[in-house]
């Protein structure tokens, strides 16, 4: 009995950790789709880019002795690493929008899509050529402890990832629902022309969207590096596909939907790995997701498709 519970509990925590990363990355897809009705194929690369910036920041800052001198200083080191990596990745997102998507805003819908694929290839190959074609270790500078709770092994790393993820989501949710700029974002996603008539500077809102999404995706990339211990130039590809799926499952364009979809996908994957087969975990997770889409084509929290068009 307690062994049984141990496995479930273990997989729930593993699933939430993985799901948190998917959810953070999924938010970027859903934010951009909500505003521009565009699938930003280059978004997966924000995961990779954030991880690299995070790694370099961590390496650079940890040379300063102060940051490794005490517990609080170490915490500060990590907070700074995340902040810097998120801001830098966010700025990259804004630059990509400005030069690769905005000139194509009035072009046929296929054009920005192709441009996005180009950006994605460019970033992957840049990382491959200029940094490394191999996995790079991502150091962990604090001692990871493992707690045994009700038969499950839960690491302090998992707790850190889950808690930080939820924190970031709460900040985003509050920003979007309570602030003036957040309201401008929602208005723009509901009716762009009408938002412009209210005095919303649409280009600024779009730039903001392309800052927030990549910043969150970059944070997810750092989590991935910390969790698995290494990063690679193509590390964004699989999580990108999964997170995009998570966004669709939740109802693309819907923020809470992306969060729900991400966690759901992470949980399904972990449970499938434990109870059925590791080799088939993705097949099983995606099969369940397809079933969800058959019954709710607009996604779990999405409007019906007819309404959106």
């Amino acid at each position, binding site marked *: 009995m307690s062994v049984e519970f141990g496995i479930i509990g273990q997989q729930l925590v593993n699933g939430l950790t993985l799901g948190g990363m998917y959810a953070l990355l999924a938010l970027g897809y859903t934010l951009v789709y909500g505003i521009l009705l565009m699938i930003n194929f280059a978004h997966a690369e924000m995961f990779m880019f954030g991880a690299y910036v995070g790694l370099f920041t961590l390496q650079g800052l940890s040379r300063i002795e102060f940051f490794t001198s005490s517990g609080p200083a170490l915490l500060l080191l990590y907070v700074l690493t995340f902040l810097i990596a998120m801001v830098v990745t966010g700025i990259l997102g804004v630059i990509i929008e400005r030069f690769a998507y905005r000139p194509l805003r009035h072009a046929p819908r296929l054009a920005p899509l192709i441009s996005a694929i180009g950006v994605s290839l460019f970033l992957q190959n840049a990382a491959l050529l200029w940094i490394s074609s191999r996995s790079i270790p991502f150091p962990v500078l604090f001692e990871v402890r493992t707690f045994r709770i009700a038969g499950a092994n839960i690491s302090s790393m998992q707790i850190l990832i889950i808690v930080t993820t939820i924190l970031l989501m709460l900040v985003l949710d509050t920003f979007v629902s309570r602030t*003036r700029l957040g*309201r*401008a974002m*929602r*208005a723009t996603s*509901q*009716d762009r*022309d*009408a*938002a*412009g*008539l*209210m*005095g*919303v*500077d*649409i280009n600024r809102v779009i730039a903001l969207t392309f800052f927030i999404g990549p910043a969150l995706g970059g944070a997810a990339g750092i989590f991935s590096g910390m969790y698995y211990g290494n990063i690679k130039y193509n590390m964004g590809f699989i999580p990108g596909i999964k997170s995009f799926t998570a966004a669709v499952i939740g109802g693309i364009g819907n923020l809470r939907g992306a969060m729900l979809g991400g966690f759901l996908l992470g949980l399904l994957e972990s449970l499938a790995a434990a109870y059925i087969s590791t080799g088939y975990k993705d097949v099983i997770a995606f099969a369940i997701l397809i079933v969800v889409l058959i019954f709710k084509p607009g996604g779990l929290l999405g409007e019906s498709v007819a309404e959106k068009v």
Partner: protein
Amino acid sequence: MLKVNDIHTFYGKIEALKGISIEVQEGEIVTLIGANGAGKSTTLKTISGQLAPLHGSIEFLGEAISGMPSHAVTAKHVIQVPEGRRIFPQMSVRENLDMGAFLRNDKEGIAEDLEKVLDLFPRLRERLAQKGGTLSGGEQQMLAIARGMMARPKLLMLDEPSMGLAPVIVDVIFETIKRLNEAGTTILLVEQNAAMALQVAHRGYVLETGSVVLQGGGTELLRNEQVRKTYLGEV
């Protein structure tokens, strides 16, 4: 107050406005009437900055505003209430009204104006927490006008406010337009309902395929034989 001088606006290669010139004086209600596709909405969108004219100029209170993006035109208190109402469907009535005041930060003034528009349309007060998308067509039109008023417009441009509404509601809307004007708001009104529009308007312009073909006082146009035949359905 508003001087539109010989504007030409294109959709790709299609010339939708072939040199339109209109003027609105402070305190007036001016109406643009014309058949479907005449270019009425295109004219309003060009003034509000949603479209840029290829030639011609637009002046508001002596300042050139043509080619400005729509948020910048809104900042000049030139406010367009768009065709089809364009309420934010997932936002509450209250949030929609707040969006109308997006560029303002005078809290007290906003609260004052909120009371004013809710007095103007008491039905909105009962529905403040309701989502915009769940309102009836008439209520949405009231909300669209109220939202426009929340920007303290110097010039309020209404695009077919009576479209698709029951006759009783149409009367309410036109009554409101008159009251807003009497209270000091200058109005540029686009309508297919020419009879009602010309009754409330001081002056009017008749548009046909992108050009002004006739202009004059409201009652003068109402009596005009060509207008009566083409737009008021008389034989």
